[in-house]
């Protein structure tokens, strides 16, 4: 099938290509859909990983150690990646939700607890309980920030989309007038 249209020339004759079901728009394939989800999860993992890494580095500096453990960093990236899956597939992507209601707050506390618990178990912060509590609060704050960022991103997106819609409708009205 050619790049531009859904019609191709076969054996000197033009034939309609595509699925032949009259569908003229292209839907995302299962693979593309999976890929989009995977990219979103990886993006989420990177975002949370860097935020956690920042907290970890600050902690290390405060205790007078300017070195970070590669093992801890590997644990962090695997954990954030796994949590990305949990958030998207089990907790309905609450950090990207439309509102921060009761259910979302519960998920937020649960995920922050998981992060704090695993950090304590893995000894990222020397198994000091008050640092783990501080890390729990930091993780909760992080979720609130991510929620706010996604929400404001959608607000900007709304403005752009509605502007494009107005332009589309104006263009159509213009063509109709000319016709």
């Amino acid at each position, binding site marked *: 099938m*050619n*790049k*531009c*249209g859904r*019609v191709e020339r076969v054996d000197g004759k*033009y034939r309609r290509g595509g699925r032949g*079901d*009259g*569908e*003229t*728009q*292209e*839907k*995302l394939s299962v693979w593309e*859909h999976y890929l*989009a989800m995977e990219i979103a999860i990886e993006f989420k993992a990177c975002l949370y990983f860097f935020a956690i890494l920042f907290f970890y580095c600050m902690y290390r500096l405060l205790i007078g150690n300017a070195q970070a453990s590669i093992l801890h960093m590997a644990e962090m990236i695997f954990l954030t990646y796994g949590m990305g899956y949990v958030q998207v597939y089990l907790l309905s*992507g609450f950090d*990207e*939700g*439309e509102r921060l209601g009761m259910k979302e707050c519960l998920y937020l506390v649960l995920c922050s607890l998981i992060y704090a618990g695993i950090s304590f178990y893995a000894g990222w912060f020397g198994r000091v309980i008050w640092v783990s509590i501080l890390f729990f609060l930091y993780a909760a704050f992080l979720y609130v920030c991510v929620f706010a960022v*996604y929400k404001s991103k*959608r607000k900007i*997106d*709304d403005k752009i*989309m*509605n502007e*494009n*819609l107005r*332009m*589309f*409708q104006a*263009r*159509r009205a213009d*063509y109709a007038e*000319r*016709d």
Partner: protein
Amino acid sequence: MKYTLERIPEGEDEVILRYCQMTPEVERIWNLLHGNQRRLTGWKGKTRVVVDVDKILYIESVDSRTYAYTSEDVFAVDDTLNKLGQFLNAVNFFRCSKSMIINIDKVQSLKSLPSNRIEAVMCNGEHVMISRTYASDFRKRLKGGRGDE
């Protein structure tokens, strides 16, 4: 635009419109070719009705039946959603989910939702969901592309 006329010894006459972008010029030719299809025939009860496609807000498929909705009325259409989408997509309609085609000209406002979905508020106040599968094509379409390339 390049024009090609090809005489064929036998068979059905055929017009093929090849385009990369749906420019106003291409769209005018398309409308000229489909001039008689700017109206949709359907059924309201047992009465046959003819409706201008520009008056339709959206077309929906429910239980294997196709219904077209205007601001005041609903009527059943004989054609399937896929068949209707084939010619309506070239004008101001857009396939927004598996079971629905909306008239973009009748959209009052849009709202971005989580998981890359879009909520469209129609001019009669109804809310229609544009699924994430079709959302990126919809955005392209609004920006001036066809969204199906």
